[in-house]
């Protein structure tokens, strides 16, 4: 398992968490290179189908990060996002996708340290679970067999 290099699709909001990733970088805070960052205008932009798409295509984990409540550039986008995330998390876990594959966080653009910390934590948890197994679209050949 130690050789397992997970792929983690990371959705970062443009205004806070993406800035935090930048800050973590220029400040040389260390975290492993397992994340594939997708910059979105707001955590509220993220639809559950995007998260499912990432998992279906073989992501071992998904991490979504936005501005702290009250700090949203669009005033309230992350409040709606919070409700969507609640439902998404519940339905995925209910269907048997392990809880440790999906992570959410609020990280402001000043929190480079937190960004590295959370990144390490997310990667650790996904690593412990091992490669994604169940919710992956297989090749049509395999699925027909």
């Amino acid at each position: 398992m130690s050789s397992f290099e997970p792929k983690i699709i990371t959705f970062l909001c443009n205004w806070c968490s993406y800035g935090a990733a930048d800050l973590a970088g220029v400040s040389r805070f260390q975290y492993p290179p397992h994340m594939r960052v997708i910059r979105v205008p707001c955590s509220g932009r993220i639809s559950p189908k995007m998260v499912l798409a990432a998992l279906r295509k073989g992501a071992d984990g998904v991490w979504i990060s936005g501005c702290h409540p009250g700090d949203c550039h669009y005033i309230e986008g992350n409040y709606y996002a919070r409700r969507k995330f609640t439902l998404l998390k519940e339905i995925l876990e209910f269907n048997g996708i392990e809880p440790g594959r999906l992570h959410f966080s609020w990280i402001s653009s000043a929190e480079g340290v937190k960004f590295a910390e959370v990144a390490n934590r997310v990667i650790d948890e996904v690593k412990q679970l091992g490669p994604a197994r169940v919710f992956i679209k297989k090749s049509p050949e395999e699925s027909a067999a």
Partner: protein
Amino acid sequence: MTILTIDRTSWNAGLDRARGDYTLVGSAWDADCLGFRELAPDEYPNMEGLLTRLSPKGVVFPPSQIMMTCALKPGDVKQNIYVSEEKLPSPRAVIGIRPCDAKALSLMPLNFDTGETKDPYVLNAWESCTWIGLAVTEPLASDFSTSCGTGPFDESPLDVLLVDDGERYLAKVITDKGTAWARSAGFETEAEEGAEALIKTKKEAAERAITSAISFDRIKEKTVLELYEANHWQKTTFACLNCGACTFACPTCWCFDIQDEVYEGKSYRMRNWDSCMTSLFTQHGSGHNPRETPLQRTRQRFMHKLKYFQDKYETGIMCVGCGRCIEQCPAGIDIREVCKTMNSQA
């Protein structure tokens, strides 16, 4: 043609013997749902004569099928060249199919073999099958097969017709294919002389038990436009939810959709069941959709089954009266009523 008698106690042993030459296909329970599919080596077909939820069309026309594949990796000599994934199926014995379902499948070459164009996937699968039907002795309330050019004992689409006779099956071996299967299974005891008459009596009893019927003679006489523009459609199609329940359950609905799926450097060209009930079915690339409204789509289904098919092929309507759509329609639409309306004088 011979009639064999097969003791129930030797039935399974016979099937097992035939497994050497044939893959067995039959109805089997999956959870709460009775389906029609290839059987596992230790599995025997359900012979209770129950109506399977979906028709057996999946035997020759699977819900999802890989037609061809192509490599996408740069440098591969076959990059972007589709290669057929057609596999010649091994001989299959389809055990216990309802005669009317077999009739439906026997119509498939009309659509999949035009003479000029042959669909190898369907035709080869169809050709690989030996059709061993089980006569329906207790027809359901939704059965109206006798008025659709077939019936509970229809032998025409079969290689062997099995008739349940208590402790034994009477097997009417109709074709050479059927003889080959019976020999492979080791069924060779000829039935007594009165067997033919016994089958006839049972046939008549079963046909009498079917009380509902449709007629479509006037549909044939009327013009397409007369039927198409009739003013009852608003009412007839109102309840339809435009789901695909009827089309997927139907043994004579063979429409499909071709989709490309890409997976790790390989492209798969797939054929999936499709339904004329969905608006996507007729959506053009331009955005135009000739069957945009639910009414148009529902009308299409009935016109196709009861009028266009009848006109084009002269083999009757594209319905064998199995009754699945009546039982499964969530909105309670009954094809017999629709046919009656279309066939009415007005």
